[in-house]
């Protein structure tokens, strides 16, 4: 596809250079070599969803072993391999990269950028992440790590883990952390440099704010983990003594470094989900954010406090009381930003006119699970409580509530929400309902009995428990819940795969959102926007619709609901341009681009598209010049025709 090109001249907002999107190469080569942030985002999302399938498989295998007490279905060593892969797969290879993919694809569109600042660094980030994931899974061909979720020292040193599995684990995790740093560098540069005219910080959409916070967090915690696993690698292979007791090193050093990283990753997943949930709540209640700046500031505060509270999981370690009190203070203080965000969500929804579409359903489920998980984590921030529950299935349950809420339900909410922008098609709504029910029901059924088993004294990471401890029934229920959860996850994966080519077509403005990504075509062309509008509020697309409506008043548009019915305007404009183009310049590609909105209307939802193009008098072409995106198209016709 050849997008329209212009020399800049007196129009600096007009694209002057076409990014090399690999055009001319075919198929997968084009995708793999593309510097386009949208292609990189799609690859991130697809890879992350593949690793989600792997994570779910690992979870199901582990829960099969735990159905009955003292089971011998899976050998202990095999179980420990599954366990060691599960933690990094579910969080590092699935949850964070899914959000990074969405950020890479959506954030430049939201801030009105034509491209990311460092496209090759962005692509490098994806490939580094993929290599990290393959390194971890490649070790399954030989002998993977058996040193547990975090590979804590001294168990992971070369005395207690003699195979090279831990080396593969360390290299893989290090590569993934490096990929996160690359990603953060590019995204920070992009949001700082490439915002549309008028897009000052207070107008940056909340998902982009979350992306910025996430990027800064990754930029800080990523190098810490790279250092930690590098020292681990040196200790294991080159007689290092970083973590060697009695040689001046300390195993607790690794625990601190690893927990800073993994606590930060937990925060990254939750903040990303909070950004996406905020956007979804606003769009589907047709409300502005109740407090956009409050949510933005609270997300930043939550990230800072969350990372600072890394010792919240180390209350039982030999650490001086003062550090633990500081940790308790910041962990408890995190209730302030988290509570403020949820309060603002409630207030946003309360005054709104909500429509229960799949993204909203998933976002509500995500919010509920995040609340439960964070409340449980908050209770364990009190030192005596933490010392009694840390590393039991109670703590496991709270972590899973928060991370399934944020990563799976929140990630899926964002996926359902932006899938039409990414592919031009909606994901199926009935499969979505089934999937949602299975995920939330399965999660509750898996976690609550597991937490009751935790109160009976069941620790995390065990491959067996004993029939005399009264946990058998709880574990049976928990395993059943895990199977239901897995089925629910697979339903959405199937839904995404099936809808990619066969879903109902969506127009550019799939849900009536007020942020700029809906102003671009679906899927967006390589240069994103023909013309970037000036941003004058935190609802730029709403302003564009208002302007269109004002200029069209003489057409006697129905007064109600037109402000949220952008499709007919866009369609009318697009259609007319397409017709003009078809008449004057029979370029099939250009016609295909411009005809996109017309297809979108057939798939557009009637709730938002209450009017159709038939409401306009015949022959009228309302607002074709008022709609910024189409104005550019008009200009294109000049030199061509």
């Amino acid at each position: 596809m050849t997008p329209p090109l212009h020399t800049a001249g007196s129009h600096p907002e007009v694209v002057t250079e076409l990014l090399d999107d690999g055009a001319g190469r075919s198929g997968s080569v084009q995708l793999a070599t593309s510097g386009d942030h949208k292609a990189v985002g799609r690859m991130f999302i697809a890879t992350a969803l593949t690793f989600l399938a792997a994570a779910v498989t690992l979870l199901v295998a582990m829960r099969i072993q735990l159905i009955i007490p003292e089971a011998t279905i899976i050998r202990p060593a095999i179980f420990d391999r599954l366990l060691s892969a599960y933690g990094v797969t579910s969080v590092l290879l699935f949850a964070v990269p899914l959000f990074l993919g969405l950020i890479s694809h959506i954030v430049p569109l939201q801030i009105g950028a034509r491209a990311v600042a460092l496209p090759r660094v962005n692509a490098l980030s994806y490939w580094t992440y993929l290599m990290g994931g393959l390194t971890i899974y490649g070790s399954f061909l030989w002998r993977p790590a058996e040193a547990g979720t975090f590979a804590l020292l001294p168990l992971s040193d070369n005395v207690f883990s003699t195979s090279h599995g831990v080396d593969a684990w360390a290299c893989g995790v290090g590569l993934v952390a490096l990929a996160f740093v690359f990603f953060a560098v590019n995204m920070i540069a992009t949001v700082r440099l490439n915002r549309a005219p008028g897009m000052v910080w207070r107008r940056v959409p909340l998902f982009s704010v979350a992306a910025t916070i996430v990027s800064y967090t990754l930029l800080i915690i990523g190098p810490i983990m790279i250092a930690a696993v590098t020292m681990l690698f040196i200790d294991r292979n080159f007689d290092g003594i970083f973590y060697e007791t009695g040689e001046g090193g300390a195993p607790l050093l690794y625990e601190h470094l690893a927990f800073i990283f993994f606590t930060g990753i937990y925060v990254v997943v939750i903040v990303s989900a909070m950004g996406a949930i905020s956007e979804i709540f606003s769009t589907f209640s047709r409300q502005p954010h109740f407090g956009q700046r409050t949510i933005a500031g609270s997300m930043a505060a939550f990230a800072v406090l969350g990372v600072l509270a890394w010792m919240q999981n180390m209350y039982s370690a030999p650490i001086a009381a003062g550090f633990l009190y500081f940790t308790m203070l910041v962990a408890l203080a995190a209730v302030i930003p988290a509570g403020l965000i949820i309060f603002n969500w409630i207030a946003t929804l309360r005054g709104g006119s909500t429509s229960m579409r799949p993204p909203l359903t998933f976002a509500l489920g995500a919010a509920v699970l995040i609340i439960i998980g964070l409340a449980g984590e908050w209770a364990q921030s009190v030192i005596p409580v933490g010392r009694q529950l840390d590393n039991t299935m109670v703590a496991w349950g709270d972590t899973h509530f928060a991370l399934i809420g944020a990563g799976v339900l929140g990630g899926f909410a964002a996926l359902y929400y932006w899938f039409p922008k990414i592919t031009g098609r909606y994901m199926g709504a009935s499969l979505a309902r089934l999937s949602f029910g299975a995920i939330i029901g399965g999660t509750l059924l898996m976690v609550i009995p597991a937490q009751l088993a935790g109160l009976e004294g069941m620790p995390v990471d065990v491959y067996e428990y004993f029939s005399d401890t009264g946990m058998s029934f709880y574990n049976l229920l928990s395993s059943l819940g895990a199977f239901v959860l897995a089925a629910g996850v697979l339903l959405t994966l199937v839904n995404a795969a099936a809808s990619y080519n066969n879903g109902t077509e969506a127009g550019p403005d799939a849900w009536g959102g007020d942020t700029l990504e809906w102003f671009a075509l679906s899927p967006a062309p390589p240069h994103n926007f023909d013309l970037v509008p000036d941003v004058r509020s935190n609802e730029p697309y709403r302003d564009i619709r208002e302007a269109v409506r004002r200029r069209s008043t003489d057409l006697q548009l129905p007064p109600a609901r037109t402000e949220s019915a952008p499709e007919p305007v866009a369609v009318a404009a697009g259609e007319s341009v397409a017709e003009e183009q078809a008449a004057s310049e029979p370029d099939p590609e250009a016609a295909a681009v411009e005809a996109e909105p017309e297809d979108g209307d057939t798939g557009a939802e009637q709730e938002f598209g209450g009017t159709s193009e038939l409401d306009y008098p015949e022959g009228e072409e309302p607002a074709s010049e008022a709609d910024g995106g189409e104005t550019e198209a008009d200009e294109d016709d000049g030199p061509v025709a």
Partner: protein
Amino acid sequence: MAGGLTPASPVSPGAEDTQTAYIVMVVISLLLAIALVGGLLSAVRGRGAAPEPRRTRGTSSLQTRVAAGLSVLALIVFVFGIVMTESSSEVEGTGPDGLLTAQTDLQIPADAKPLNIRVSGQQWLWRYEYPDGTFSYYEMVVPVDTAVVLDIESIDVLHTWWVPALGGMADAVPGSSNKAWFKADETGSFEGTSTTFSGPGYPVMRARVTVVEPDEYQAWLGTQAEGIQEAQAAVKAAVEDGTAPGVELETGGDSGEEPTP
């Protein structure tokens, strides 16, 4: 070993403080979660038919008031947490029914009279060393109503000492010593388990603390010491006879120094 919806019913003052903190925090966080989830779900219920959104935005004074309320909550819980932590980690003196002649090498007030036991974690067993040098594995025997101070360490990887009825967890870390204490109010056996992943034998790394009357404890120490001496004598004899399987008697000559290249 659990007491319904709470972790193990406590039999030590520190564990009672933990229990109190647990119940208070569960109630507060449950109320908070119910309020927030309820608010969220009620906000979307029945709003589908609303013709037009209200398009309300919050004022900064409202946001400030909400933040102030949450700050007060966090501050109260923080103070409560410090009080409970201090109270649960303060070693209480041995009671009148306890072992008043307990030996210790700790510098602790004379009236406390705690019993000092070294707890050593290893894959995948706990070893307990009593003040008189006697030791035991897996099962620790202690006198009732006696302050027991544990010095917890590990000889290999990370482990966690945790007997829920007697208090919170304490990590066993190689190279550093961790402290825990309890004073059992009643006799009986209390189960515990390690909660830090330590390799293939991790799930079987369980512990048991058996609380007995002081005179029973003294008697147990005696039999345990005798048993150890007998066993050691038997092993020594077997080694000297050359009948011990897999053990070769070291002669004086080649023991000790390694040849230096």
